[in-house]
């Protein structure tokens, strides 16, 4: 009994018990459904063991959407609690847990997999490759992310959620002030999915450097590939810092080390520094691929080539370097002195310059273009003014002297949502709509899509503009309530209404998927958007081998060249057998062991922890000895597939 007590939730409520029941029922339903429809074999063969970058991309996408709703429910609960003064919907402890999980889920388990979904799916197609450089590693990356996300999500029904904020500052996150296992979940779940992210970084860089189609020099890569390349370089150099910080945090909590403690020489500010040395580049890891999506979409629907290709690339390179030089702006008020603050103020303001260059490039791409307002284009058009607003308040926050007024207020919360929602989320939704036909062979409904875009924008403005005002008036972030005398009530009510409108917008996405799956035409050809880049030169949906014949390229807009300037993409029309990697169950099994490993550490169960560690090492040894040379797709099979998909080009 004493053994089991540790798994109990320290602050139970009806909502948590209801979730336990809901999780239990859902799992039973999934297992029963799979058994009843005899889909276990299908699930294992086609999805759990797949190494196909397209399927892995789709699995990332589904996970990201699920996590979007998990994080969204957290957000609605927070806005509901704050909608009226001295509200008692949530108590302080629950509020702490919810803002913590909201932040972690949205950044690590929603935004990251969303960009990985698009990168995985699009980048190999855009460069004319047949898969990524390390398909097996790619599957391992996904499953590590997935298990990390699952581990994090079970925290609120087993042992208690983390409650020290998504930044998890010490000493608050230390054992003394965070007594539940919640912060252990934070440390280990993020660690596991972070290892996956690092592997994706290595994989994508190698893919982009080594596997481009003939003729595609670096400066002829489509912009989304460029942005993914830069984002992955940042991943490789930023994530190890997080790995070390999380490992030290874990050791402080589990093994009594003195890294971030308040005695024996420990230094709590060290955590803040290490966290943000990763954390600030992390926001550029998210925003750069988003910029890449906007570049593709705006150029396609303006029917013009991207204005200022070279300056786009240069600005991203500058952003990637500078992203490592601004981290201290997250804690101007924590006493590092005037000189340090001034330096970080200047670097932070300077990083707005390359970002501004990109805004002007998009505007000039549209200049005199034949603009067609499709759903992805609508998101891009809404993005430019809304994101610029967020950028301007960012420059306000960058002024360290003024920051003493804004710090830790709702003003900051409004700012970063103002850049992340129109910047990253709109881009992901634009990318989702744009690449949906590529993934599934039919288009999402335009009418519902545009309604979604407008609802999200209006909801966004209603939800976050009032926070700028209450923030300047002194409403602190992360406070679970406020008194009526502050006068924050009406503005917070408006925020709540905005949050509800956004929730309706997100629900419409689900409805759109359902509606389009049922009613949309499957006869959309290869190029439904009249696009410009290589990924639209193959069939929809894409065959396993991507391109029957390797395309040849002479500019960053290979398909446009082929359509308008008589460029021949596929010179050699004779098929040759294609080498493809084999499926493998090891990444899934290894990640499952990682789940057990993380869980054992969280609850200090040392024997399972040792066994799981051995299990992980055995999987690695197995990989070392394994001889896997992949398989070939024969010419007959290619011919058959190509004929079925209305003939090769």
């Amino acid at each position, binding site marked *: 009994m004493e053994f089991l007590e540790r798994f109990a939730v320290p602050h139970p409520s009806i909502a948590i018990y209801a979730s336990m029941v809901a999780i239990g029922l859902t799992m039973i339903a999934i297992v029963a459904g799979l058994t009843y429809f005899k889909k276990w074999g299908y699930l294992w063969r086609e999805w759990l063991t797949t190494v196909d970058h397209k399927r892995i991309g789709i699995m990332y996408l589904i996970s990201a959407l699920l996590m979007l709703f998990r994080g969204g429910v957290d957000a609605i609960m927070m806005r509901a609690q704050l909608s009226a003064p001295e509200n008692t919907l949530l108590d302080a402890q629950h509020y702490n847990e919810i803002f913590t999980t909201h932040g972690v889920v949205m950044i690590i388990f929603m935004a990251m997999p969303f960009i990985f979904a698009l990168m995985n799916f699009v980048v190999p197609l855009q460069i004319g490759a047949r898969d990524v450089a390390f398909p097996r590693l790619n599957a391992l990356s996904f499953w590590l992310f997935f298990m990390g996300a699952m581990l994090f999500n079970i925290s609120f029904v087993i042992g208690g959620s983390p409650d020290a904020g998504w930044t998890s500052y010490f000493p608050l996150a230390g054992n003394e002030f965070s007594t539940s296992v919640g912060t252990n979940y934070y440390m280990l779940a993020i660690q596991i999915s972070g290892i996956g992210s690092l592997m994706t970084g290595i994989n994508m860089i*190698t893919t982009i450097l080594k596997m481009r189609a003939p003729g595609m020099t670096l400066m002829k890569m489509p912009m989304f590939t460029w942005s993914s390349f830069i984002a992955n370089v940042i991943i*490789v150099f930023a994530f*190890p810092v997080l790995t*070390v910080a999380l490992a030290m945090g874990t050791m402080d909590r589990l093994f009594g*080390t003195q890294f971030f403690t308040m005695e*024996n020489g420990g*230094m709590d500010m060290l955590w803040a520094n290490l966290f943000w040395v990763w954390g600030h580049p992390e926001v550029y890891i998210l925003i750069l691929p988003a910029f890449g999506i906007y570049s593709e979409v705006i150029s396609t629907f303006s029917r013009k080539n991207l204005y200022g290709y070279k300056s786009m690339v240069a600005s991203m390179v500058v952003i990637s370097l500078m992203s490592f030089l601004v981290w201290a702006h997250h804690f101007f008020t924590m006493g590092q002195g005037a000189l340090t603050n001034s330096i970080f103020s200047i670097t932070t303001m300077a990083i707005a310059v390359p970002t501004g260059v990109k805004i002007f490039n998009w505007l000039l791409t549209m200049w005199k273009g034949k603009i067609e307002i499709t759903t992805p284009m609508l998101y891009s058009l809404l993005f430019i003014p809304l994101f610029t607003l967020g950028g301007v308040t960012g420059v306000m926050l960058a002024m360290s002297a003024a920051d003493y007024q804004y710090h830790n207020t709702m003003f900051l919360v409004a700012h970063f949502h103002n850049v992340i929602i129109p910047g990253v989320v709109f881009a992901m939704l634009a990318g989702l709509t744009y690449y949906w036909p590529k993934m599934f062979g039919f288009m999402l409904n335009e009418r519902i899509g545009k309604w979604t875009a407008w609802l999200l924008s209006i909801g966004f403005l209603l939800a976050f503009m009032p926070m700028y005002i209450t923030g300047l008036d002194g409403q602190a972030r992360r406070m679970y309530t406020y008194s009526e005398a502050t006068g924050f009530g009406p503005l917070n009510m408006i925020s709540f209404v905005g949050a509800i409108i956004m929730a309706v917008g997100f629900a419409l996405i689900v409805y759109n998927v359902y509606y389009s799956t049922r009613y949309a035409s499957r006869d959309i050809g290869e190029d439904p958007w009249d696009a410009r880049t290589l990924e639209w030169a193959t069939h929809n949906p894409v065959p396993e081998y991507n391109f029957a014949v390797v395309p040849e390229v002479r500019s960053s807009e290979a398909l446009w060249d082929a359509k308008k300037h008589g460029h021949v993409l596929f010179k050699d029309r004779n098929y040759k057998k294609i080498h493809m990697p084999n499926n493998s169950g090891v990444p899934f099994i290894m990640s499952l062991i990682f789940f057990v490993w993380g869980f054992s550490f969280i609850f200090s169960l040392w024997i399972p922890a040792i066994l799981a560690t051995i299990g992980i090492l055995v999987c690695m040894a197995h990989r070392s000895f394994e001889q896997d040379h992949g398989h070939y797709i024969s010419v007959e099979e290619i011919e058959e597939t190509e004929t079925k998909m209305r003939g090769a080009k």
Partner: protein
Amino acid sequence: MKIDHSLPLEYSTDQNQYNILGFWIFLGAEIMLFATLFATYFTLANRTGSGPSGAEIFEITPVLIETLLLLTSSFTIGLGIHAMRLGNKKAMLSFFSITLLLGLAFLGVEIYEFIHYVHVGAGIQTSAFTSILLTTLGTHGAHVTLGLFWGLFIILQVKKRGLTPQTANKSFIFSLYWHFLDVVWIFIFSFIYLKGMM
């Protein structure tokens, strides 16, 4: 699998080239990992709390032995790769085995060193300084331990399967890893031990 015979065996297929580039990028990430540990070490080196300082616990003899063992092992694995390029499987396996034995000896001395630290009251919980000292050394030591198993697996594979594009590729990548651990040790030797004893 297309094999290009104009290139050394470890570079001879496309996948081999991807593997080597990918591993270099991984080493870039490893550099960041150790850089973070070093940065933390420099931050916490003088924050000894009630525990001992570096000058009080460092002993030059085991450190010199460790350095000598590891530097020699880096040289012998270089000879091993040279033998591999010449196609001399027997010499290659001998040099790889010597490398691993030197690595094992290094690990033995490091374990002795750790026991010594705990013995003189510098455990991982003692102070911020001892925490980061033992974590940095431990991370390097864990890399060496992993490398011993990995190297052993590669020796067994070369023995069984001969020098193929795959086994040559693995051996070459392992040599990169081993050299990297040596480089990290040079930094540990210079900036932790020598600086700490001055």
